[in-house]
């Protein structure tokens, strides 16, 4: 065991006992009457659920460890155990150093108290002594950019100010081990960047160890050198961040079905689209693609009577419903029957999660339309020996990179 070991978790497991709903007593009276009626019956009706099972890992001083996994995989339970909020059922963890954990921004903030009062209260809640808070007070206020409103109750703050102040207190905790759970999903973009910068500073300049849970892959990549992938309560991959992220994306695509059944039209329409199938160019069904990688969408549809000038349309939308791209098939006069249109999609999108819109028209009139169905993700990494990285809309992927010339 090396001397700079900060966290060492051995075979940690957490099991929740859940009584089936009808048997779970929630009031004293129920508990008493139930225990009297059937003193031994209760235990047998409990079902067990392993939130974590056999989790082992080690973290060294100064390391920034990303913890990723899908919702419900057990990430938050792990953080709660590491923060000593809830005990494990099995296994043990050694922590060397003061733990500061930030599982939620602004827990312990009281709306009636002023900004100043809340800084002291929240600092104390996070484990700072009054002297430490005194020393950091000006830094906290400067970081949060709320100097002018310090003596106003925080209930009068805008939500952005509130969150800035809350993060600022936690960011100045100066722990040996900083545990951060998905708190960056708040605040405006500039402040998120500032938070990331602060965490980077905590990790790389003060030598603290950081554990960071996030769904924002870009944040994990930029901050962490190593990552743990947790799935169904187990660590399924532990290693360099790129490899773990790739595995995570693959896991996600397995979760997104490649075939999306489409809703039936409300009234008796002359035609309907049935399903969308997503696949790679190789024809293999999947829904996660790399930046710059072309893929295929097959729209299946059905005509109940002969229709002239039929066009099938397929579009991509952002998760907020904003339209991104639309493709149209060449028009054809069609007899009744089942048909399919194959769209080759090569889109300038990176680091995007999109949903589909599907439409059919006949003679320039819409006869079927649905949107916000299915899902597909495009990563921010492109293939190549030196992977391309980008994010955003309108990213043009080229394998040729321009030379840098002297100006």
């Amino acid at each position, binding site marked *: 065991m090396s001397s*700079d070991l900060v966290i060492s978790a051995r075979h940690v497991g957490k099991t929740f006992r859940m009584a089936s709903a009808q048997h779970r007593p929630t009031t004293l009276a129920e508990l008493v009457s139930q225990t009297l009626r059937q003193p031994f019956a209760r235990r047998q009706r409990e079902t067990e659920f392993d939130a974590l099972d056999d989790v082992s890992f080690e973290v060294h001083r100064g390391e920034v460890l990303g913890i990723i996994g899908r919702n419900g995989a057990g990430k938050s339970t792990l953080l709660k155990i590491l923060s000593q909020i809830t005990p494990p059922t099995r296994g043990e963890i050694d922590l060397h150093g003061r733990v500061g*954990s930030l599982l939620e921004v602004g827990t312990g903030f009281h709306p009636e108290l002023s900004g100043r009062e809340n800084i002291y209260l929240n600092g104390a*809640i996070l484990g700072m002594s009054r002297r430490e808070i005194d020393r950091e007070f000006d830094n906290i206020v400067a970081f949060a950019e709320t100097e002018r409103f310090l003596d106003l109750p925080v209930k009068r703050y805008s939500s952005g100010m509130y969150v800035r102040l809350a993060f600022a207190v936690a960011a100045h905790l100066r722990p040996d081990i900083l545990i951060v759970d998905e708190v960056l999903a708040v605040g405006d973009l500039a402040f998120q960047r500032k938070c990331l910068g602060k965490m980077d500073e905590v990790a790389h300049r003060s030598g603290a160890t950081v554990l960071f849970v996030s769904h924002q892959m870009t944040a994990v990549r930029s901050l962490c050198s190593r990552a743990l992938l947790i799935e169904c309560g187990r660590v399924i991959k532990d290693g360099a961040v790129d490899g773990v992220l790739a595995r995570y994306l693959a896991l996600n695509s397995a979760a997104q079905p490649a075939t999306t059944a489409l809703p039936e039209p409300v009234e008796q329409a002359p035609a309907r689209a049935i399903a969308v199938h997503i696949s790679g160019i190789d024809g293999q069904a999947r829904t996660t693609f790399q930046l710059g990688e072309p893929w295929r969408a097959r729209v299946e549809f059905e005509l109940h009577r002969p229709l002239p000038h039929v066009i099938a349309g397929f579009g991509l939308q952002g998760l907020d419903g904003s339209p991104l791209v639309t493709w149209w098939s060449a028009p054809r006069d069609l007899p009744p029957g089942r048909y399919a249109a194959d769209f080759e999609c090569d889109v300038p999108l990176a680091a995007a999660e999109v949903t589909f819109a599907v439409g059919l028209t006949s003679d320039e009139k819409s006869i079927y339309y649905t949107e916000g169905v299915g899902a597909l993700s495009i990563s921010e990494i492109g293939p190549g020996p030196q992977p391309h990285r980008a994010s955003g809309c309108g990213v043009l992927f080229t394998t040729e990179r321009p030379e840098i010339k002297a100006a």
Partner: protein
Amino acid sequence: MSTPTVHSVTQPALTGDLPLPEVSAPIVRIRPPRTWEALDLSGLWRFRDLLLALAVRDIKLRYRQTLLGILWVVLQPLLGAGIFAFVFGRVARLDSGGEPYVLFAYAGLLAWNLFSGVVLKASGSLVANAPLVAKVFFPRLLLPFSGVVSTLLDFVIALAVGGILLVVCGHAPGVSVLLAPFWLVLLLLLATGVGLICGALAVAYRDVIHILPVTLQFLLYGSPVGYTIAVIPPGLPRLLYKLNPLAPLIEGFRGALLGHGEVGIRSAIYACVVAVAVFVAGLFFFRRMERQFADVI
């Protein structure tokens, strides 16, 4: 399994721009809880600033956006004493042992308000701070304890006013007042113990929060707050009445303030034993339950 849970090592030297916390880095071993665990006194001490911060928050919030502010601390027992003086003194014509009935009732209410305030604050503190319990680590005992501290502050102010009242009415307390702290400590131990047990139970069973005010109301009339023990018929009724450990505590405290009304030595010992036992039981019961608070709350 090895037994030690917490001990300290010195922190290795590090280079960096930011000064590191000067505390030595402790090794904490996190492991599954055992049924009964020792109290974590060092943890409580490390978080002592939080105890104060929570108590201060409590006090600030209680009187924020009120017109009379801190005056309520005094007005509440004064009004209560007035009502008791009217009901028990004027209407029922009970004996106060020669004191002005208002003074007599005020002294009783001081003790009672301390007891009921601590019980209510301590037992409600966990549920009231549920987000903290679910998301932040700190010794859970601090929540009920901060309730005790904030109630104590109210009590001290009300006590000071009581002292002034006594002097103004020409009943300046004598030597007996030296006994008052003894009764106070017992009262606090008993109330805190009850508060800890109820608070830990309330995390899983919110019924407790609804039962408590009613029980306290009942207990208020079952304790010698507005009257003396002397009005209880001697013999079996009085013996049963004295099973209430609050009876000697309140009588004792009032006697110490007003200068007469002794408590029998047996009653005093009984109250002493019960108060300490309830307090210790409360501590360990709370300790046993606290590991699951975050999962249940």
